[in-house]
């Protein structure tokens, strides 16, 4: 077993607090939360994450002081049996501290935002007692995510991996007894189940990879795995990396396991922003970056990773073009952007991938939260208009669920066809959304431009096919964001709710402004100018020692700047926005999407998500249900299997009854048995 001397300097002793602080927060809230009200709960949860954030800063500072030398902090020994040695050790290097900062920083802003958001949301849904539960789950998520990024072995990472999966499940199904419109239905619950089950498939891949490591490399601790991988049999490392890719496809929602993420938007908007855009879904990218030495030994696997990422990026972007739900567009956009990151780490551009991961966390969180603000604005407008139009107050509040359902189709505050003209009614949100959209579209000088450019540059250098796929995807990205901006904020209001929409309070908008500022200047951390590659230098302390073994290395090119690539990307982006203006911004929108007239059935495909859900339904779910029905039938489960076990049970019960007859209670028979026993034992010797 690989043994490392625990090194720890500076503020390393704070390492446990990145996990303990959110755990303490959720403990306090689960005991005292309900009694003390919303402000208390929100404050405790936010302070807990704030402590984790401060600890992360100090840890990053320590790592910087130590010139990137890995610091280990062992919380406790776990189990030590034979050669299996497991301990709760946290690993502090530039990669893990970057992820910690990302998780706790964005997490903190979203916690604060959620205080305002959930305050309104629980009131719209008539369930004020669930406010506390939301923050408990959110803190649970932060704790699990911190363990995921800080754990020093694949096992600890897997525990965190499962933990975030659990938190994600709980939060997607937070309003489990209704659908996204608040109607009684199992839609949200089904979405949560879908996310959980699809993720199980991915986790299965991760588990297999873990077993392979344990059997063939004899270790789960990172350094030990990497050291052993070099001398492993030739099939082992490719197998491990491909099974890890299955895990990545599940968690980071890549083809073919991406289907859960759009449905996951059933969760409250802060959840979509934090878990399903900024942090949890990037865990796969982190996993591949962390496993870089393994992928270095398996170039074929790396090619597959790059292709999976690129194809996902393009495929999801086409679907995003055809969506009407404001959050669904962002969901598919997230899948597409995750594809960019996976493709980046697939071509060996780990720094570019991590760079895009962080920038994406800023602008996608911003977009989701702004979308949440838009939805709340429309809900406020809808309620006001309801009251205004003589619906009795009690009706619009308490009987909303059943009443609306029967009379007219329920109002969907997330449908972009109900919006329009919001730039006048919600000017702050508009400005913030615009910044996020431009950053996502990759327009200079916003954050997304720099990171996307770096990915394209690396792809062009190492894998030409991937470069082209990503360029087309980038074009579509700019197009669907343009489409969204025109549909939501420009033109005239297409629904009364949009007319009466109201701007959100500062507790919602202030965190957004911080994210917006980061989306504008975030690119500064890694500008392609000599002396400005701060992030690259920082991450290279951890990645560079392993990168020289990577066949497809970024031999200094990431720091370069190719005017053609940047130029093409920018021109394509601006063209796409222009094109979207021609279609959506120039003329008032009718009931039929202008692109539909243009593309016909192709647009239908985009709108219907290329029927992938239906395909899975036919291939997997229906045969599965059929099989389950057969197996449960009269001749199989209830007949054969039940019969077998019932029979077995009866035999044991029968035996038990017989054996019990020996307990006669008669002392003479007891003594007799005793003597018989000793005769048998004695005679054994001569047998």
């Amino acid at each position, binding site marked *: 077993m690989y043994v490392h001397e625990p090194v720890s300097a500076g503020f390393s002793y704070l390492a446990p607090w990145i996990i303990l602080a959110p755990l303490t927060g959720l403990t306090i809230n689960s005991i005292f939360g309900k009694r003390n009200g919303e402000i208390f709960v929100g404050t405790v949860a936010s302070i807990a994450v704030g402590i984790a954030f401060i600890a992360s800063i100090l840890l990053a500072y320590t790592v910087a002081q130590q010139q990137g030398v890995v610091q280990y902090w062992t919380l406790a020994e776990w189990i030590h049996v034979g050669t299996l040695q497991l301990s709760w050790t946290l690993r502090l290097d530039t990669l893990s501290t970057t992820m910690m900062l990302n998780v706790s920083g964005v997490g903190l802003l979203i916690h604060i935002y959620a205080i305002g958001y959930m305050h309104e949301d629980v009131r719209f849904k008539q369930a004020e007692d669930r406010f506390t539960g939301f923050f408990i789950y959110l803190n649970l998520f932060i704790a699990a995510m911190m363990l995921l990024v800080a754990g020093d072995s694949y096992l600890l990472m897997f525990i965190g991996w499962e933990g975030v999966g659990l938190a994600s499940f709980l939060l997607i199904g937070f309003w489990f007894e209704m659908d996204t419109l608040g109607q009684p239905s199992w839609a949200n619950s089904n979405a949560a189940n879908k996310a959980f089950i699809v993720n199980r498939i991915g986790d299965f891949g991760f588990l297999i990879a873990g077993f392979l490591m344990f059997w063939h490399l004899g270790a789960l601790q990172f350094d030990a795995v990497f050291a052993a991988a070099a001398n492993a049999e030739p099939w082992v490392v490719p197998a491990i990396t491909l099974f890890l890719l299955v895990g990545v496809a599940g968690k980071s929602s890549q083809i073919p396991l991406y289907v859960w993420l759009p449905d996951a938007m059933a969760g409250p908007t802060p959840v979509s922003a934090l878990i399903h855009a900024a942090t949890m879904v990037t865990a796969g990218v982190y996993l591949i970056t962390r496993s870089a030495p393994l992928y270095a030994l398996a170039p074929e696997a790396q090619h597959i990773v790059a292709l999976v990422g690129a194809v996902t990026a393009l495929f999801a972007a086409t679907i995003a073009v055809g969506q009407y739900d404001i959050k669904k567009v962002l969901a598919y956009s997230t899948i597409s952007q995750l594809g960019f990151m996976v493709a980046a780490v697939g071509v060996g551009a780990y720094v570019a991938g991590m760079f895009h991961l962080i920038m994406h966390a800023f602008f996608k969180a911003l977009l989701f939260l702004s979308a949440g603000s838009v939805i709340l604005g429309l809900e406020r407008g809808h309620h006001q208009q309801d009251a205004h139009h003589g619906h009795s107050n009690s009706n619009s509040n308490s009987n909303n669920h059943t009443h609306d359902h029967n009379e007219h189709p329920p109002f969907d505050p997330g449908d972009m066809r109900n919006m329009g003209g919001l730039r006048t009614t919600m000017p702050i949100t508009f400005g913030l959304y615009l910044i996020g959209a431009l950053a996502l579209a990759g327009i200079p000088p916003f954050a997304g431009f720099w990171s996307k450019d770096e990915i394209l540059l690396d792809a062009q250098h190492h894998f030409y096919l991937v470069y082209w796929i990503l360029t087309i995807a980038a074009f579509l990205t700019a197009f669907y964001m343009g489409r969204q901006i025109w549909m939501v904020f420009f033109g005239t209001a297409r629904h009364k709710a949009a007319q009466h929409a109201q701007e959100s309070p500062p507790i919602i908008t202030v965190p957004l402004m911080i994210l917006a500022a980061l989306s504008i200047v975030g690119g500064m951390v890694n500008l392609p100018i000599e002396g400005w590659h701060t992030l690259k230098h920082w991450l290279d302390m951890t990645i560079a020692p392993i990168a020289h073994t990577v066949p497809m290395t970024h031999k200094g090119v990431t720091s370069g700047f190719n005017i053609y690539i940047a130029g093409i990307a920018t021109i394509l982006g601006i063209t796409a926005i222009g094109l979207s203006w021609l279609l959506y911004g120039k003329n008032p929108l009718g009931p039929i999407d202008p692109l539909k007239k243009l593309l016909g059935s192709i647009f239908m495909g985009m709108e219907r998500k290329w029927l992938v859900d239906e395909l899975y339904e036919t291939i997997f779910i229906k045969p599965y249900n059929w099989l389950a029905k057969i197996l449960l039938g009269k001749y199989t489960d209830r007949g054969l299997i039940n019969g077998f076990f019932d029979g077995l049970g009866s035999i044991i*019960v029968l035996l*038990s009854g017989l054996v019990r007859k020996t*307990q006669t209670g008669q002392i003479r028979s007891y003594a007799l048995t005793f003597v018989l026993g*000793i005769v048998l*034992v*004695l005679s054994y010797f001569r047998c």
Partner: protein
Amino acid sequence: MSTNLTSDGIIAFIPIIVAATTATLGMLGIAIKRDHFWNTTLMLGGLTLALISSVWAWQYLPTEAVTDLFIVDAHAHFYMLAILIATIACIILAYPYMQSHSGNREELYLLMVLAATGGMVLVCSRHFAGLFIGLELLSIPMYGLAAYSFQRSHSLEAGIKYLLLSAVATAFLLFGMALLYAHTGQLSYAGIEQALQANNSVSTNLVWTGTSMMLVAFAFKLSLVPFHLWTPDVYEGAPAPVTAFLATASKIAVIGALLRFLYTVPALNSEYLREVLAILAGISIIGGNLLALLQTNVKRLLAFSSIAHFGYLLIALVASQQVLVATGIYISAYLLATLTTFGTIAYVSSPYQGTDIEELDRYQGLFWHSPYLATALTVALLSLAGIPLTAGFIGKFYVMFVGVNTAHWWLLGTLVIGTVIGIAYYLRIITTLYVTASSTNQIRLPIGWNHTISGAMLIIIGILVILLGAYPQPLLIIIPSTITNLG
């Protein structure tokens, strides 16, 4: 080889001395003034002192035997600690139980202290004389304890049954010792080992007969099939705190002594012996579990399940690899879980003047009026069933681990079958705790029960079961450190 008692030796002996003094003082205390509270406190205090002194004396371990008869090494300390913890817990449980007892109450504690002293002597002995003294000092108070509620015929019957059958077992033990002495001319373990090695006569009829007879006596005390028949009757008849004592302190002392005997005289620990142990283990696992399956009397059910548990434990002895670690861990888990289960019975029976609540029906819906106690009981039962995240799982895992390492496949097969049957009846108790009560017969606990020492103790032990299951590292550090050369 003669050793004089040195000052180091006295230090090592302190726990036993303190326990013996406690018994004497307890007796005097009762003679001076009968007072339930003060007499109990006195004896409890004495045992606690013995516990502390055992922990303290651990660091002053003598490198050599203390006397010809006894050795106090890390192994002895570990088992003495277990016995003391069990006894203290049983006394705490007995206190509320005895409050409603109509006869003399204080002697119960006295007998327990005496038996505990016997157990401590037993695990230290390295000589047949010490072994015999210890075993009898442990057993004779047990007869009185089992028959303590003699107003109930069941209790009296239990005491007499245990006395008679125990006498048979003791006769076999003495006979076995005599045969070994006849062959070797030695009474100390080391001497026997030397003599056997010297004339290389391990596999003679005389030695084998002597060893088997001693083994049978041990098997009786550990209630292994087919020497188990007394177990359910005595467990059922004895007052519940006594049953708890019998199931924990008494059995732990015997297994500690058996381990020392077998590993100090490795010449006797032959292939034959291990085969016999394997058969005993197998039939105990199957027999114990089958007997437990249909029981509705909780005390009898747990009696049968304890038969199976010592069957599981024997697998480690058969595998004879890392035996002391595996048994140590298994014993710790068994101790905690058994204290909780029998403790709960004792505790809920306290207000009923000596009639124990032992029918499963009476526990219906316990969870709904005493959630904490029911949860602790659930945890203990899950631990006995060997469910992960409980201490019982760690114990069973270790036993399986050594079994797999030494490829005792059929024995592991019985372990798996036994565990499956075990889960069936443990779950039956657990589900009973959670159904809503239909009978008016159900037990009621006094309000504020969990503020009493006994109630709080049960909950703390329940928490320990979970804690050591999730984080077994303390056990895994302490127990291997008790492995010394047992000679």
